[in-house]
């Protein structure tokens, strides 16, 4: 009973277990729902899917199983506007950006796109096939394939409104989607490591009782230090230039890290690490810290997180004097290797989408220097990074 459905879900890499499947069958048998596909969709979701970030994948699997519609995966499935916008921002040159500004800016552009989609929707309700929008006009100019934009799957054959699972309302909850501060905090929490150190200012009840017993009933009070998060983190943030596109994300990461770790030090650098870093971006010239001093000051047990897009000219990494800002005596790669030698627990978080990494030489080089420990700033990437750090 429903075995194919179960297998279809498993094929979509949904972690459903036999126990849950039996629970679903039991619920169907006990008449929780009538013969209604919408109700079954909800019931199966409640019984089988235990994580809202998997709802989107479930919707796809459900649609595939119950309609035999070919599952659309990857980029052409259904691109949220926000994603399009971000993706386009990443790939546009300054010149193209200026052109968009001239056309009335992003708001205008997206407005047009939205209107198009609405029109599309109405026509679709009328029974026409849904096709990619905006094949002509402003969108062609911006380097993404407008044919790829699809809203929902083709439901018009049934002449009914789009089904719940076709609406895919949970797509922004997928694990690979953008981060909010709260999500980041949850991910960073993996790093927590509690230890007792410092002044003994907490009553140790267990030892007090056993001590008192051993003392034949005379009170023997034992104290111990409070339990604290003993993790020590150094944060190196790339600032300026190509990082401007990622400011919001970096701010979120930073504020989450701030509240999560008591012992957190942060430093800024530009593009690649050289002799100097700074703590206050407004006084980056006057108040610099020598990188050597940092290497010597903070012990090996610090966890180090670099945040940067690693997008630069390869010269900035390997060539002495390659820095954009001043003539550096030693290439950036040397400094990065020093960091890795000093702090074995070091990762690089890269806000650029992972798909782009292979096309940028400098990213590949830095990834190499970091022995593959570069992670995207998605929830999954962050979790992997924290796993590596806490090992």
């Amino acid at each position: 009973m429903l075995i194919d459905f179960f297998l279809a879900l498993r094929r979509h890499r949904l972690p459903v277990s036999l126990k849950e499947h039996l629970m679903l069958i039991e619920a169907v048998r006990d008449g929780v729902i009538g013969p209604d596909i919408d109700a079954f969709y909800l019931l199966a979701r409640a019984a089988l899917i235990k994580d809202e970030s998997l709802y989107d994948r479930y919707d796809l699997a459900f649609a595939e199983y119950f309609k035999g519609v070919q599952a659309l995966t990857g980029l052409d499935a259904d691109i949220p506007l926000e994603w399009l916008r971000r993706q386009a921002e990443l790939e546009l040159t300054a010149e193209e950006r200026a052109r968009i500004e001239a056309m009335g800016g992003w708001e205008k552009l997206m407005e047009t796109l939205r209107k198009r989609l609405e029109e599309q929707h109405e026509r679709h309700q009328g029974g026409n096939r849904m096709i990619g929008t905006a094949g002509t006009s402003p969108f062609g100019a911006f380097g993404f394939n407008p044919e790829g934009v699809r809203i929902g799957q083709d439901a018009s054959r049934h002449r009914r409104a789009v089904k719940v699972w076709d609406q895919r309302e949970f797509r922004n909850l997928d694990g690979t989607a953008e981060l909010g501060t709260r999500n980041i905090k949850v991910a960073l929490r993996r790093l927590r490591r509690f230890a007792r150190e410092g002044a003994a200012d907490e009553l140790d009840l267990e030892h007090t009782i056993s001590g008192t017993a051993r003392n034949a009933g005379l009170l023997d009070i034992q104290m111990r230090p409070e339990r604290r998060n003993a993790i020590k983190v150094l944060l190196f943030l790339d600032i300026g230039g190509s990082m401007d596109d990622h400011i919001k994300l970096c701010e979120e990461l930073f504020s989450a890290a701030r509240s999560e770790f008591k012992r957190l030090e942060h430093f800024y650098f530009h593009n690649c690490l050289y002799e100097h870093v700074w703590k206050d971006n407004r006084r980056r010239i006057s108040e610099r810290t020598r990188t050597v001093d940092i290497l010597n000051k903070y012990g090996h047990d610090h966890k180090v997180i670099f945040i940067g897009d690693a997008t630069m000219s390869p010269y900035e990494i390997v060539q002495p004097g390659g820095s954009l800002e001043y003539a550096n005596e030693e290439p950036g790669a040397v400094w990065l290797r020093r960091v890795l030698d000093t702090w074995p627990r070091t990762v690089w978080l890269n806000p650029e989408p992972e798909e782009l990494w292979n096309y940028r030489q400098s990213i590949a080089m830095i990834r190499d220097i970091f022995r593959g420990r570069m992670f995207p700033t998605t929830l999954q990437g962050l979790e992997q990074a924290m796993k590596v750090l806490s090992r």
Partner: protein
Amino acid sequence: MRFEGSADYVATEDLKLAVNAAITLRRPLLVKGEPGTGKTMLAEQVAASLGLPLLEWHVKSTTKAQQGLYEYDAVSRLRDSQLGDNRVQDIANYIVRGTLWQAFASETPVVLLIDEIDKADIEFPNDLLRELDRMEFHVYETREMVRARHRPLVFITSNNEKELPDAFLRRCFFHYIRFPDRDTLARIVEVHFPGIRKDLLREALEAFFEVRDTPGLKKKPSTSELIDWLKLLLAEDISPEVLRSKDRKTIIPPMHGALLKNEQDVHLFERLVFLARQSR
């Protein structure tokens, strides 16, 4: 037994279905969702509408699974032994029942709420596997087995601060309460403020979603903030005209402090409004 929502609580179809599945099979229902979407309220409302008593177990970071079962009060026993009290002979006198035991021992079925399970230690849900699955546990001190007379209806809420173990999840139904859409929200407000002026409600919701859609907010206002805000609007007798404007982006809604509870969010919002005004 079926839950059909109640006069004080607007339940969407999917929520009702998940609740009814959990009621029929007597399995725990795990409820997640943004803060302020009525996760805790759900258990209260189910209990009220089914006419069952509600037992609440609020979990904190220091809560141990054992505390929900029972605790052995060694200190009073020690004191009683020094005072020569006869009760000291029977260890059962010093076993203090926890919430779960009370739920198991109840003569009638009860609704049990385990609130904010993710606040506790990471091992907490694992320690309750057998208790929630078989609805029984063993009391070591008195060598007695406690079994549930009636399997209680268990509601568990989580704010997603920690991941819950798979073994635990497999034993539950799961429902994610989404932030309500405009129509549901209007119904919710109607429940809290019966007979609220339609035009005021419309304008207020419009302004509320405007604030909620502000990009980059740290804490988006939720249903409970909306309710508080409306309460203020009604108390101050603010007319809908104040909320209405041709270009809504250029006004700051009155008492927006009730909606935005974070200083940075307020600054951000005011800055955006200010920018919108300038660009006009």
